[in-house]
Each structure stands twice: as structure tokens, then as C-alpha cells.
């Protein structure tokens, strides 16, 4: 994901229907890309930029001590939301680094004993790319397909894990389609077969309950900016009992138990901690509110537009995500039209390759349909008014673009698009 439309040069007066005020800034519906910081998080961070600015690793004076106190409180807050011990949490620059460290760190440490890893084809690029690098080093990697609803096939997973499998990496919540993988079942399977279980929880922390004990999770990647915290900070949970070892990617002063050297960015750590504390406290209410908003949005869209398809499971899905294909309307042109809304497209038509989303393709969504998809993300600051405005805007532009679409015309005339011999270009 993909094309973020930034076109607002042309406020078309006639575009706004009567009684509908265009928002001053586009309505933000891309909460899986990133989130705004919660003002409470910012407030907690501010003292650590100015007065409590010390190096948390300084042992000889109060500046160091108070910074360390801030960092350690944050570590405990991060640990608490996932049911871990604070000694099991190390800070990183974000989920990408955490994923790199988990996969490469574990693979490198245990390489003399085991050389096989398992993952899903729908994982985030940073997991897939780390796997590719490991393959180049000589590791074996199994990329499991997913079912049509985006979920892992547990029987396939069980078959894939061998006595050579060091690690299974399966994300908790997919960044494009929001589907929730069965973590507890995966964890049980990995434990039974003696493989470590790593899960990328960038999109899951604060959205769904997580418990590293109940779910048998051995390593977990966490991101700050997906949960209303700052960008540039993340964490990696590394199990202590039984102890998981990993080879550091960044070496130096031996901070973070030698697993990640470098002076900790105190304000960012504090921000991540506060974001976790707020999320843990408000998760239940927030999930209910977002489910209500999402259902309101989806019900109206389905009522007003035919030929709209949901990608990925609806039942096993976080409340704040929808990924919809608006058949016969190309996603990027739709994004250009709905420039009062900030959403992402699965079309990725801006890339020279013209390849649509690999995640949607993995669900078996055909290429033509993948080009018509939008990811709509709702979050903490989304309002009912925004949702209703978004519905109107999308309905209006889908209708306009369908009137302009030769495929829509053919569909209306009963032509089977698959029967036509299209010239590839």
C-alpha cells in the first residue's frame, strides 16, 4: 500500500453537494498507515525533551536517573499490554527493525542447529524481505499461502514445521486487510513442534487483546506510530523462559541486554509506553465504537452501491479496517476523485510494474478486481459525521466513474469480461 492521493489543487465548487460542507483538511481514513499522536502521549513526552533530557544510561547524576526512570516505566507499560515481564521488552526504532532483529537475530544465533523458517505470503514487506536475505545466506524459507479469507491454514502450517524449523513468523493483524490470525492456535502448534513463534503485532497491539503466555508467543514486534504514539520507536518482546537468544544487528555499548545497542531515545520510549497504557485502558470501548462506525459505513455503502466486495474475513478482523473492491472502477482514479478523504489504494498503479497488491492477489482476488480496491481505516479520532461524509463522497464518485467505465457498461450489457481476449500491455 500504496498511492496516497495528495491532489487538492482543484476545489471543484460544483463537486460539493448542497448542504454538504467540504472539510478544511481531508478526512483521515488511513489509520493502518499511521495514526496521529494522542495529545496525552505528547504531553507525557514533553518533559523528556527539555528538563528530563538526560542520557538514560548515565549512572552518575540525577539527569540520567530520571531519564532511566522514564524509560523503565515505559518498558513496564509496553510489557503490561502484552502480558510480558518488563525484562523481556527491548526498544527499537520501529516494527521494521524489530522484525529484522527477530528473524535475522534468531536465524543467525541458531544457524548451527536449525536452518528453516516459515512465514506467510501476506506478511509485511519487511518480513518478506528479511526472509529473502536469509535465503540468500543459505537458509530455507517456506512461504505459506493463505485461505480466501486471508487466514492461515493451520493444517498446512503444521505440515510445514519440521525439526529443522527454528522460527515461524506470522503477523497478528494484516496491514492491508485487517484480518486477525489465530495466534493462540499458531502458538500452540509451534510450541508442540519445537519452533519459536514470532508475530508482527504492529497492527494488533492496542486493537486486540494479546497475551504472550496464553498465546505461546516467543517474539513480538511492536510499533509506536500505529497506536497513537510517536514515529521512530518500536519494541521487540523476547521471551526469557525458555530463553530465546538472538544475535544483535546493531552492536556497540551493549544497551538493551546486548540485543540492541545505542542510546535510548527517552521521549520516544516514554511516548510508546504512554500509548500502550492508554490503549490498554481504552481498548474495549474503542473497539466497540470503531465497530459501530465501521458497520455504519459498510452498511451504507452496500445499500447505495451494487458490486462492492469485501476483501478478507469480516468476522476475524480488527474493527478499524475495511478493504473494499469497487468493481469496474480503478482505485487510483477513485482516490483522485474523493480528494476530501485520505485513504489508500490496493491498485499501486503508480509503481512502474503496474502490479496490484500482493496481499489481495494472495487471497485469490483477480488482478482486475485488485485494481479497484481501497483500504479504509477508522481510528480513535474518526467521527460519525466523517463516516457519513465519506460514504456520500465515495458513492458519488464511484457512480460517476462507473458511468465513465467501459467495463461497467459491458457488465450492464451482460458481457462476461472474462470471455474477452484482452491485449496485455
Amino acid at each position, binding site marked *: 500500500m500504496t498511492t496516497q492521493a495528495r*491532489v487538492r489543487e482543484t476545489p471543484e465548487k460544483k463537486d460539493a453537494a448542497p448542504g454538504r460542507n467540504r472539510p478544511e483538511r481531508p478526512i483521515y481514513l488511513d489509520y493502518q498507515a499511521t495514526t496521529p499522536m494522542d495529545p496525552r502521549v505528547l504531553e507525557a513526552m514533553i518533559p523528556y525533551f527539555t528538563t528530563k533530557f538526560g542520557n538514560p544510561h548515565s549512572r552518575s547524576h540525577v539527569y540520567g536517573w530520571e531519564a532511566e526512570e522514564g524509560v523503565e516505566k515505559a518498558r513496564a507499560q509496553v510489557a503490561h499490554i502484552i502480558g510480558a515481564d518488563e525484562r523481556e521488552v527491548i526498544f527499537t526504532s520501529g516494527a521494521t527493525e524489530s522484525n529484522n532483529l527477530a528473524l535475522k537475530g534468531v536465524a543467525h544465533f541458531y544457524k548451527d542447529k536449525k536452518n528453516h523458517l516459515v512465514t506467510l505470503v501476506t506478511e509485511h514487506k519487511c518480513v518478506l524481505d528479511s526472509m529473502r536475505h536469509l535465503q540468500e545466506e543459505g537458509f530455507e524459507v517456506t512461504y505459506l499461502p493463505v485461505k480466501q479469507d486471508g487466514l492461515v491454514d493451520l493444517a498446512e502450517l503444521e505440515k510445514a514445521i519440521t525439526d529443522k524449523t527454528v522460527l515461524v513468523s506470522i503477523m497478528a493483524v494484516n496491514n492491508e486487510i485487517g484480518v486477525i490470525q489465530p495466534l493462540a492456535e499458531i502458538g500452540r502448534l509451534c510450541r508442540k513442534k519445537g519452533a519459536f513463534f514470532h508475530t508482527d503485532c504492529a497492527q494488533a497491539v492496542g486493537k486486540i487483546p494479546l497475551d504472550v503466555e496464553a498465546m505461546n508467543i516467543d517474539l513480538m514486534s511492536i510499533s509506536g506510530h500505529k497506536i497513537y504514539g510517536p514515529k521512530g520507536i518500536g519494541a521487540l518482546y523476547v521471551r526469557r523462559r525458555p530463553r530465546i537468544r538472538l544475535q544483535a544487528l546493531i552492536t556497540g555499548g551493549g544497551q538493551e541486554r546486548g540485543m540492541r545497542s545505542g542510546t535510548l531515545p527517552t521521549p520516544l520510549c516514554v511516548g510508546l509506553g504512554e500509548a500502550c497504557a492508554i490503549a490498554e485502558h481504552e481498548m474495549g470501548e474503542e473497539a466497540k465504537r470503531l465497530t459501530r462506525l465501521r458497520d455504519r459505513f459498510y452498511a451504507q455503502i452496500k445499500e447505495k452501491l451494487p458490486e462492492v466486495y469485501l476483501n478478507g474475513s469480516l468476522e476475524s478482523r480488527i474493527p478499524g479496517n475495511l478493504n473494499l473492491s469497487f468493481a469496474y472502477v480503478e482505485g487510483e482514479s477513485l482516490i483522485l476523485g474523493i480528494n476530501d478523504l485520505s485513504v489508500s489504494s490496493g491498485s499501486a498503479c503508480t509503481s512502474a510494474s*503496474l502490479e496490484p497488491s500482493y496481499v489481495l492477489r494472495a487471497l485469490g482476488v483477480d488482478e482486475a478486481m485488485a485494481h479497484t480496491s481501497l483500504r479504509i481505516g477508522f481510528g480513535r479520532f474518526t467521527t460519525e459525521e466523517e463516516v457519513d461524509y465519506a460514504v456520500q463522497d465515495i458513492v458519488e464518485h464511484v457512480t460517476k466513474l462507473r458511468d465513465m*467505465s*467501459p*467495463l461497467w457498461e459491458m457488465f450492464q450489457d451482460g458481457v462476461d469480461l472474462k470471455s474477452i481476449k*484482452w491485449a496485455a*500491455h
Partner: protein
Amino acid sequence: MAYSEKVIDHYNNPRNVGSFDKGADDVGTGLVGAPACGDVMKLQIKVSADGVIQDAKFKTFGCGSAIASSSLATEWIKGKSLNEAETIKNTEIARHLALPPVKIHCSVLAEDAIKAAIADYRAKTTAKVAE
């Protein structure tokens, strides 16, 4: 993706959207691109007996640049003879719309659509003469 003002203008106010009866003798239809590639253009011309394009219509499934390229193409070919219309190059379309390199294929498709519509019209008239 920043679009040029001209692309935005064609996107917001597309010229000549619509369809002619593709079975009509004086209509040529070009359908190019593929849904799987994210671009399909249908361009139609209505041609007078002396070989002049009197009217043109399009429908496009594709990004803003694809819509703008086909909209512009219909504007340019109206009033031209078939031979003149055939000489329109994708580079002229791309230049006029200030398309970025990744969108050049949209202008190529528009040129192909013009050529396909003309070829379809010619095939029809030749077939008729043969009758």
C-alpha cells in the same frame, strides 16, 4: 502522485464521455488495454462519408492520467480526417498533459485506441464494399 492541472481538468470535466451504437455503419470502435493491467479504454468515432471524424466518444477504466489521455484524444480527433487522426502520437498527448514517466503508457494506450477505432471503421467499410 501529483497530477498536472491539465490532467485534473480532464478528470473533473471529461470531454465526450459516452457511447455510440457500435453496430452502426458510420461508427468505428477501439477497445484497448486490459482490466488486469488496470487500464481499459473504449474510443469510438463517427465518420462522415468523406472520411472526416464528425464526433468521438470515450469510456475509460483507469487512473486519472488514462482518463485524461482518452478525453484529450477525443477532443483532438474531432474534425480531423482519418488520415490526420492516425498521425497523432502518444508523445504529443503525454507532453500536452505533462504526464510523468510512469504514466506514459496511458498516452500509448490512447494512441492505440485511436488507431483501433479507425481500423475498425475501415474494416467495416471495406466489408461493406465487398458486399
